[in-house]
């Protein structure tokens, strides 16, 4: 904080955090193995830090230990037998770079490449993002339509699908996200839309649509809207009506009505407004993916 002195000069005055008054009892740990990290996270009031911004924003005052995950061997991205695995330490920027070579049309490239800003994409990690899945997440929509899974080690080690992960947040306590898996990430046509006023804004909602076609037949389509009261909503009614059908069926579907998602009021608009606009963009995304009409942001 800068204050103006009686001499007329401006001077930086440190706040409590800058003075180190907020707490000095925090211990930082820098484990080099997943087992070591998991053991540290089993301790009370200990929190993992992947490098992103959530902890900086929330502060460390309620913790006695921070486990820095940067040295863990979790900074990788690989595609084997069609399964995409992304290590928890990959930043959004790294995922976009690596995936641009492996699978450039993957919806994750569009979604994570447009999240936040360049400097933040260089810090936000997949593991941290999965742990918090904030309401403005650019990962959760694509995660839903690609039917990703979350792999963990520690107290509750295992593999979780998105709905069980979101429904059981206490499972994360003492548990380390090690990677995310996308069993079938390649060869989807996709469209990703984020509702923002300026590029680096938090999106009010996002729309994710992926589809596979065979000639004029829709083999499979998946659609999701994030940012509503349910965090992420799969539009299963639309999916069921279109899967296995001819592309022409889209014209007979009242997408606008079927894509209604419930929102709370947000700075960008009322719940009704956001619901209306989201439905419009679901319709546009479906037309883009299935019929090749333009929509992306």
């Amino acid at each position, binding site marked *: 904080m*800068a204050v103006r002195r009686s001499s007329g000069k401006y001077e930086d005055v440190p706040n409590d955090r800058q003075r180190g008054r*907020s707490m000095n009892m925090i211990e930082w740990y820098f484990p080099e193995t997943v087992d070591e990290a998991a053991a540290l996270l089993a301790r009370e009031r200990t929190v993992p830090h992947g490098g992103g911004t959530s902890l*900086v924003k929330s502060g460390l*005052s309620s913790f006695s230990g921070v486990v820095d995950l940067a040295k863990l061997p979790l900074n990788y991205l690989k595609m084997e037998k069609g399964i995409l695995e992304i290590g928890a330490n990959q930043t959004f920027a790294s995922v976009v770079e690596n995936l641009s070579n492996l699978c450039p049309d993957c919806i994750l490239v569009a979604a994570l490449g447009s999240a936040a800003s360049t*400097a933040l994409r*260089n810090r936000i990690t997949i593991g941290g993002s999965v742990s918090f899945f904030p309401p403005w997440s650019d990962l959760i929509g694509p995660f839903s339509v690609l039917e990703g899974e979350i792999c963990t080690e520690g107290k509750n080690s295992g593999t979780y699908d998105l709905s069980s992960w979101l429904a059981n947040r206490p499972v994360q306590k003492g548990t380390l996200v090690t990677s995310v898996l996308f069993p079938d990430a390649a060869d989807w046509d996709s469209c990703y839309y984020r509702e923002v006023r300026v590029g680096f804004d938090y999106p009010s909602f996002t729309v994710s649509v992926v589809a596979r076609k065979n000639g004029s037949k829709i083999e499979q389509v998946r659609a999701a809207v994030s940012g509503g009261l349910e965090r992420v909503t799969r539009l299963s009614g639309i999916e069921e009506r279109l899967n296995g059908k001819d592309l022409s069926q889209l014209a007979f579907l009242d997408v606008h009505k079927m894509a209604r998602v419930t929102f709370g009021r947000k700075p960008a608009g009322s719940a009704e407004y956001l619901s209306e606009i989201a439905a419009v963009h679901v319709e546009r995304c479906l037309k883009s993916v299935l019929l090749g009409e333009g929509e992306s942001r």
Partner: protein
Amino acid sequence: MKGSFIVNGKKEEWSFAPDAVLLDVLRNNGHTEVHRGCGEGECGACAVILEERLVNSCQVFAASAAGQKITTVAGIGSIHSPHPIQQAFVETGAIQCGFCTPAMILAVFCLLQKTPNPTDEEIRKALDGNLCRCTGYVKIIEAVRLAARRMSSNE
């Protein structure tokens, strides 16, 4: 706690609070070329290069950056020996109050390291987290184009 950092090629050993962010540690140790703006990671005025990546230093815990290489704008050029990017900003009038400029220069530096001849779209993307409230972005983008041309052709 204590940590060592390599700032602009020079090894430093500094003390800081466990929850201190890199921005404060740099400024408290004389690197006032790193500007404090919003403190929320939104304006980009505090950007530095951590290893090879542009980051908002207000959003990085100093503890997590210990042992790493940090480049501030003072590490790439000076008033007597400006970097071609700095020179291009001056010549095109891409500076007004100058508050955002150090971070803007570093963002462009990172961009041109990876993409020597960026498109306008790539320039806009690279600068998406650096706000300028004076000039707008037309002159800044012009400066980036000029710097890219000069650095590519070694003018």
